[in-house]
Structure formats: C-alpha cells, structure tokens
C-alpha cells in the first residue's frame, strides 16, 4: 500500500487542512469529507456495491432459496448440478450446486456473511487493541514505549499467514477461533499506525494546553490524543478488512479455517478447486467472483477514505 499522493486524487478544496481540534467544526468537516468522498465515481460505485452485498449477506436467511448450513435440507443426490438445473425439491439452482448438494446462490450469500463477519469483527477488535497499545506507548514513552513497540516489531516480522496457520492448528476450527487468530496477527499494524500519529499529535499545542490544565492521563489519551489519531486508523482498518477477508479465505482454503459444514467463500472456492480441471467450473468460479467483488469494493472505499482523510493530500 503506497502512501504517496496520485495527482488525480488531489482535490482543489481548501478545507480540512490542519486537523485539531476536531470537535470545534466537526459537523461541517464531516460534511465536507462526505462530499469529497462522493466526488470519486469509483469509490461511490464501490460503496454502493458494498452496501448491497452486506445487506444481501445479512438478510440472506430471509430470501436465500435454501439454508445451506442445515444439513437436513441438503441432499447428496443433488450434488454437482450445473447452473440452471432443478434440485430434488423442484427448486432451480441458478448457479448450480456444490459437491454436497448445496445451492450455490445460497452458499455464496451465507459464505459472504461468514467472510464479512470474520473480516469486520477481527478488524474491529484488532483496531481497538492495537490503537490502545499504540497510543499508550506513544503517551508513556521511554521504556514502556520501547517494550510495546518491540513486541509489535516481533509480531510484524512473522508472515501473517504463517502465524495464523500455526494458531489455528493449535486452536482447531471455528469462526470464533479464526477471528481470534486474525486479531493476533493484525493488531500490530494498528499499534504502529496509531503510535506514529500519536507521537506527532503529542507535541502539538492543544495537548500541551491540556497538560497545563493538569487533566488526568486517561482523559488526555482518550479525549484528546486518540480522536486526533483516528483518521489514519480508519484508513488502515478499511483496507485491513479486505485483507482479513482474503486471509480468512486463504486459511479456509488451506483447510484450517471455518467448519466444513458452514463454508465461507474461501472454503467454497477450495471445495470446487479440484473440479476445475474436470469441467465443473461453477463451484469455484462464482464464490471466487463474489470474493473479488467484495475485496475490490472495500479497497475502492478504503483508498478514497485515505485520500479524503489525509490532510496532506487535500491541500
């Protein structure tokens, strides 16, 4: 991920320059940010697609043709049907069925839900832990800072996929365990990002002013320092959601992720992978397309957020 500004993204707007203090003109700033966000067509499309997909995934139980996680409704006799064929129940499988007889439309919607839940919740938890650690380290300074940041360095020196594989081999399968593993491999990104911006903010006048008022440390950290470190955090978090979804898919593809009877997108792809050469393309392809769309949409939104929230780019 590059932090450099690309020329077409630089907006000729004058606002949103030097950030703090946020509360003063929060309303108008937010409105300006929103307006600026929608100036990009790509980002707007990405956001719309994302909202539609999220809604479809979470409302899946209401309109999905089948509950693919209820084994009693599946029939092995329906397996590997090509798109458009009828199941034993008379239902038409628009995108075909997989090797266990799951309707692919339903399986993708439910799988998308698992992927989004894993992606969003792991990022949320990791961001909270990482941001707290980062802002605390920056505020405390000295040995505490060195100690926290060396742990972060240590964590970041291992490839995420390797650490997650080992953790899941120990924990076993399950959505909760995948989330835990992703939190462990991701919190360090947030810690480093937040510490960086907190170090800058720490030297600003408004913090000094707050210090002079002898405000308690907790208030200083959480009411003054942290809110002003949020913009970069939001950007990293948005991009990380896409990474987390891709990581979960990879883990499930490798057979250590979610339970086999409740497949996520990654597992659907893995299940169909061995049939690709045999002509049964639909089992891997459609979940793969769904995964690509989600990740591209999230990345479009994330990139635009970075541009909008980065004062150096909008000046």
């Amino acid at each position, binding site marked *: 991920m590059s932090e450099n500004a690309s020329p077409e993204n630089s907006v000729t707007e004058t606002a949103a320059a030097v950030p703090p203090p946020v509360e003063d003109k929060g309303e108008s700033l937010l409105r300006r940010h929103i307006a600026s966000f929608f100036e990009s067509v790509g980002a707007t499309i990405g956001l719309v697609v994302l909202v539609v997909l999220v809604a479809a995934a979470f409302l899946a139980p209401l309109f999905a043709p089948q509950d693919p996680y209820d*084994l009693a409704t599946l029939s*092995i006799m329906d*397996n590997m049907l090509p798109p458009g064929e009828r199941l034993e129940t008379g239902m038409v499988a628009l995108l075909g069925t997989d090797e*266990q007889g799951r309707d692919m439309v339903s399986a993708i919607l439910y799988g998308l839900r698992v992927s989004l839940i894993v992606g969003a919740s792991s990022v949320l938890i990791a961001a909270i832990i990482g941001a707290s650690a980062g802002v605390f380290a920056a505020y405390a300074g000295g040995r505490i800072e060195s100690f926290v940041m060396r742990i972060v360095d240590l964590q970041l020196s291992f490839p995420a996929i390797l650490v997650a594989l080992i953790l899941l081999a120990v924990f*076993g399968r399950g959505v909760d365990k995948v989330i835990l593993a992703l939190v462990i491999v991701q919190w360090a990104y947030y810690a480093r990002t937040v510490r960086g911006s907190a170090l800058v903010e720490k030297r600003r006048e408004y913090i000094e002013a707050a210090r002079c008022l002898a405000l308690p440390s907790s208030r200083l950290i959480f009411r003054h320092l942290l809110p002003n470190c949020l913009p970069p955090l939001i950007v990293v978090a948005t991009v990380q959601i896409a990474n987390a979804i891709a990581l979960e898919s990879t883990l499930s593809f490798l*057979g250590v992720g979610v339970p*086999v009877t409740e497949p996520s997108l990654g597992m659907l792809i893995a299940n169909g992978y061995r*049939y690709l050469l045999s*002509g049964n393309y639909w089992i891997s392809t459609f979940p793969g397309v769904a995964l690509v769309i989600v990740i591209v949409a999230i990345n479009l939104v994330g990139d635009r957020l970075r541009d909008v929230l980065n004062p150096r780019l909008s000046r």
Partner: protein
Amino acid sequence: MKKVFRPLVFAAVPLALMAATPVVAATLTIGLALEPTSMDPHFHNLAPNNAMRQHIFESLTQSDENQLTQPSLAVSWEPTGDTTWEFKLREGVTFSNGTPFTATDVIYSICRVPRVEGSPSSFTSFTRDIAGIEVPDETTIVFTTRAPSPLLPTNLASVAILSAEAFGGENVVFGADGCENAGTYPASTDFADPSVAVGTGPYKLVSFNPGDRITLTRNENYWGGDVEWENVILRGIPNPGARVAALLAEDVDVIETPPIQDFDQIRSRGFKIEQGLSNRVIYLHVDSGEAVPPGVSGTDGRNPFADVRVREAISKAINREAIIDRVMGGVAVAAGELLPWPLFGTSEDAEPDAFDPDRARELLAEAGFPDGFSVTLFTPNDRYINDERVAQAVAQMLARIGIRTSVDSMTASTFFSRRGQGDYGFWLAGWGAASGEMANPLLALTATRDTDAGTGLTNLQNYSNPELDALIAEARRTVDDDARRAILQRASKIAMDDYATIPLHFEVTPWAFKPNLSLTPRVDQYTLAMGITAAN
C-alpha cells in the same frame, strides 16, 4: 497439431513393436503417491516401504494380489504339530551379489527384525510368535512357536530375507530372547547403498535419492526367470494433480491413485485406468461405553450409542449407494463386513445394510430418542479417499432421521492423536487389513481393548462383547484353515449384527497408465513393477 498426430502414433507403436521385441520399453517409470521412507526392509511397516522392498527383497512366503499366501523362497510348508511349522526352502536361489541363499539367511533376518534402531513401526509383530528355529537339513527349516500360530506362513510374507554373509552374520544362532554371533546389524540408512541392499528379488537397487527417485535394475541372478523391465524408476509425486500431469505429459508410465474427478480426462487422452478392490474398509465408530461421550448432547445424560438400536439406526439411515455414486464417483463398493468377499473369513451373503430411513427413525424412537440428539462426527480430511466429504454426506443422512450432526475435520496426524486421547464420541476412519483375513480387523476394531494382550488396539470405542472375544481368540489358535474360516465367518456375523463397527464402503484403488501396458490390481494397494506388463 498434437491431437491430429496422436492416433497415428498409437497405431504405429504396436505395429513397430510386433516387428521388434515383445518388450515395449526397457524402462518403466512409476509415479508413486507416497515415497518409501527407507530402503531398509525391516525399518518401517508402511505400505510404500513394503511395496518397494518386494522388488529387491523376498520373503519365505508372499501374498498374491488377493492376499492369499503363496510360495516364494519357501516352496511348501505344513504344520508338523500344534506349535511347529516345517518349511521347505527353494533350491538354487542366489542373492544379487552372487552368494547362495541358505537357511542361515532366514535366521539372520528374523534375528534382525527386533534389532532395527529407530524403527517408527516395527515388524516384530510378525516374528514375535517364533520361539525356536531348527535346520534339520539344508533345505528344511522348522519353526517352533510359543503358542499355536496359524498365521505364521502369512506373517512370514512380511519378513524380508537379508543376506547374512553381506553383514558378517554367517554364524548366527537363534535365541528367542536375542540371537548370538550375529555380528553388528546394519543401520537402516546403510541400505541406501546398493552394495548393502542385497536381496533375492527380481530387481536390485541402483540409487535411492529421497525426494526425487529410486532407480532399480534387473537382477541377472533372479531365480524366477525373465524379468519384464530392464530398469524401473519410482518417483514420489505426492500431489495428485502433479501426478496426473506427469502421466499426461508421458513423464511417467504408471501413476498410483489418480483423483476420481480426473478419470474422464485421463481416459479421453487415451490412457487406461484399472481399478481393484482394496482391503481397506471405511467405517464409523461410536463410543458405546457407559458415560456420555464427547460431542454428544441432548440425551438426558444417557449415552445413545450404548443401545444397539441406535447403532442400527445410524447404519440404516446411511444410503451407501448414494455416497458411492455421488461422493466416490462410483469408485467404491458398499460394505457389509470389514473385509470384501472373497478374502479369508468373509461370507458371500454378507450384504450391506439396506437404506431404510423410516425404520431408522422407528429404531431411534424405540431406543428412547424420538427427537434424536446432537453429535459431532470427527473425520480426518487427508487420509482416505474423499474422507471429509463422505463424513459430510453421512451427517446429512443422519440429520434426516433427527440425529443433528456437525462435522469436525482435521489433518490425519491431529485426528489420530486426538482419537487416541479419547476426544471423540463418533468418528469416521478406515482400516486396511494387512494380513488380508478377517481375524485382523475383528481383533483390531471390535475385540475388547487390552493393550498388554494386543487385542482391540484400535477399539477406542469402549466396545466389549465376550462372545465375540471368545470366538476371535479361538480363531487365533486354530491351525486348520477350514475350521478357522468357519469361526471367523461366525465372529464376523456376530460383530455385524451387534453393529460393533458400522462399515460404509471398501475403497477401490485406481491406477492410470499408458495404453500399451497392463496392470494387475492388488488388494493391498501395492504398486509393483512385477505386476505391470506390456500389453500384447
């Protein structure tokens, strides 16, 4: 372009060969699914090793493609008493280094079996019964066993014969508690050296490069006459896709276990596929002990599996034909016993349990579970053919009769170590009977567990049936084949009627190979160059 020429090439090859020699190609290259772990034939009792060593080392007896015991280095054998077996040795056999084969080599080999250092899975179970060895004359060897040992000839098929002279063991004296004058036994790693890996088999070792290939060449001193191939190359290609690709690119001539979903592609490219019934049964085990086993809930503190009606309901709820048709691609055979007919101790009329979900629901209700219960089915996901998918299909079928089943799958090493710790109440696994007769699976899977006596070693389901135990014990000391077969058939029927193990299907082993070859499938799933010939 390639497609245009292919039929021409295939037409031309047989013509050219008819004119020349009956041997198609001097070199046979085999793509193995799993590479042997050592060239030492006594090191690791593992299918790839046991298959590999048969090219180089022979035994007194050998098991044929249906696992019936046949002569090899011994020409005949008979029991001369309850605890004695007399073997007549083949005359005129020499090792690949030219030294003659004698009874001393047999004694030396049996002496070494328990003395292999670092053996991960030893061959001692095949020699443990032997209490004494005598050599009345040069071609006769008499074994005395600790107890009646009807399986001794079968067991000796697993003991490779080394050359005593090659290791300075010419003066070895057998002792049941350790041999004398055996010299220093060779280390397992030494066998990678062709001058150490000396046997009487049809081939001899040229080189062993772990991770790449094993090269063999014809043994000119082989007693059995002509050997089909001048050179044999065995390459370990663990990835199934890569194995198929290697065959299609004609880098190898034969591959083991091509994936079922690739059959059409392999056939359409002109290659042949041969399938053989294996001795491996895929089965379900349920913890039938007193306590509610792990993974079971909704039973009011009762263990549902302790009730034979629940076990029967599970068996009847499973549509074995649907699993074979839809999951196994037709490449499996429904099982009604732990070994397929006509192996020793099986009955021709042992039919698989018929699919009858209505009766299964009735049985559940009679057992006091009209609303079913919840259970987790544990399964390995990389050990047996489509294991994880079979487990999911079973879970579907059980869900239909009210047993709410979730599937927990994991890699084989984790699966087996957790099973050993008693973490499971319900699991899917497989059993390949190395000896090819019914006493083996009955003893391992259904006999009451007693690690000291060596019974029920894989009966981790707390199953115990004294009547069955008595029959298995009787079969193990009956030397007369016909009597033993009848006892085993009766024992198998009792075990199946009590659902001591719920068999699903027998795996069928496929091989794919070039169209100008023919291959004899083996029940033990071994791939042997001796079983591959040029098709006429």
